[in-house]
């Protein structure tokens, strides 16, 4: 070591000092997302492993089990391909709603991460938007895994499938917004049990993943039709086996779902984070 005092650089470090700043600045959103990316690099293996293994297990259990014994085809599609396409929605909800609930809660109440971020020139709106975009981007990738897995059971690639990441992304935005809202609303982390039992599991079950909802009682069918996950299931099957005109409405519904939960999430997190 030299005896010279350390020289500390000055000029290019100084951050800009604007007189005024806008809402929803891309730089703020990108900064928050870069934090998620840095953290993701430390745990991506486990998440990726389970997101690949889970659809495999389901496909083997339901697809092969039920397919070999009880059902051959549903709506003219081999049962395993019916389940495989439907499982995109399963992958999406479990990689968006749950991580956003738990992740937001932990970052907010245990790690005080948001307290630190909001001391920088970042608004709650930018913070929530960035968290939603990041979760949705991840889900868009993980959501495609079941589809790819199903290729090995004879599902033919189709051009419409190229839209699946977009469908998954928009749906995941909605569920991320939902999860963040829930994280802001609950008092204790174990209250997520209620959220899971009351919302996530029913939505997952009446999405039309494992059986067509047309076989359900009419009351339940109504619920299924306002279930964003069901819209996603139908859109993915549209991409794989051919779209219908109504799919445009389904997509619009998902966009609306994302917009509504986004505003709720921003509103509830603001109430939590700003005294």
């Amino acid at each position, binding site marked *: 070591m030299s005896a010279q005092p350390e020289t500390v650089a000055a000029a*290019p470090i100084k951050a800009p000092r604007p007189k005024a*700043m806008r809402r929803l600045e891309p730089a703020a959103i990108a*900064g928050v997302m870069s934090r998620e990316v*840095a953290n993701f690099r430390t745990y991506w293996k486990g998440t990726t492993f389970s997101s690949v293994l889970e659809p495999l297990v389901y496909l083997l259990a339901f697809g092969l089990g039920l397919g070999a014994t009880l059902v051959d085809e549903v709506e003219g599609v081999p049962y395993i391909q019916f389940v495989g396409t439907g499982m995109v929605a399963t992958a999406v909800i479990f990689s968006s709603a749950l991580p956003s609930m738990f992740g937001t809660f932990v970052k907010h109440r245990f790690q005080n991460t948001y307290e*630190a971020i909001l*001391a*920088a*020139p970042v608004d709650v709106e930018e913070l929530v938007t960035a968290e939603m975009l990041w979760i949705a981007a991840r889900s868009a990738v993980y959501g495609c895994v079941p589809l790819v897995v199903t290729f090995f059971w004879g599902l033919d690639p189709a051009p419409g499938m190229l839209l699946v990441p977009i469908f998954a992304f928009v749906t995941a935005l909605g569920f991320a917004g939902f999860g963040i809202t829930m994280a802001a609303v609950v008092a204790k982390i174990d209250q997520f049990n209620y959220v899971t039992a009351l919302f996530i599991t029913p939505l997952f079950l009446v999405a039309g993943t494992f059986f067509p909802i047309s076989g359900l009682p009419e009351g339940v069918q109504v619920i299924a039709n306002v279930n964003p996950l069901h819209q996603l299931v139908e859109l993915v099957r549209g991409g794989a086996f051919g779209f219908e005109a109504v799919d445009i409405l389904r997509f619009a519904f998902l966009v609306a779902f994302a917009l509504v939960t986004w505003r709720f999430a921003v509103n509830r997190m603001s109430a939590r984070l*700003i005294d």
Partner: protein
Amino acid sequence: MAAIELQGVVKRFGPITAVNGLDLDVPEGICLGLLGPNGAGKSTTMRLLTGQAIADEGKLRVLGFDLPKESKPARAAMGVVPQLDNLDVDVTVEDNLAVYARLYRVADVGAAVDRALQIARLTDRRDAEVDKLSGGMRRRLLLARGLVHDPDLILLDEPTVGLDPQIRTELWTLIGDLRARGTTILMSTHYIEEAERLADEVAVMHKGRIISRGRPADLIAEHAGRQTAEVYAPPQRLAELRTAAEAAGLRVRPAGPAIAIVGSERADNGVIPEDAVVRAATLEDVFVLLTGEEAE
């Protein structure tokens, strides 16, 4: 222009008034110590300055920006070091700094990170996970993170609370460096020694407002005089001495197992017992007299 100008600021949490008519000016280039016991409203004041709490009443200006309306550009120009460690523990030292350099829109993220590492003396630990750092290194990193964009004003909220003495001294050195460079600092603390060593001026905060303000030496001269006499004795005798000293117009405060008779140079013969230890008056005397709280 003052770096911070607060006038008549009030912040309530339901029935609690955390900040109660706070007036505070921090001129540029000084280190102001906001000294107050737990619950005085120091952290709430810091949160008001970053727009994380919205005042119910009063005027707030930071670096020429009106709060809460212009809090975002104000935050871009200031750095905050929180009371609680909220680093990302699974990622590296470098990544922690880089994320905040981006949040502050620094043009050259790499250069900013290098500089922050130098300030915190953590250059050789840049690739270490935060988990693997010692307690002192973590605190230095927390400080460096708040400085990554070379802010014009730094808010330090109880920077050494709960740390062991060696780490505290390390941190004091770093804060001393900042001060020497002329950065404006608002530092809250409930440690008298911290305020005494680092602050150019001290504002004593109690129950949500400033009850006294000045250079430590001036505060001592004003409120405590020159000398304090400490007496160690059984409780019975302490009580008698206290009554006698107060009857003679002196102020007395508890000091752990002893009592401290403040301003003892003004005492008439016989009021201060032979076995008293007479020492120079300190900021601690002032703090305890003003707030009625035992010092830490």
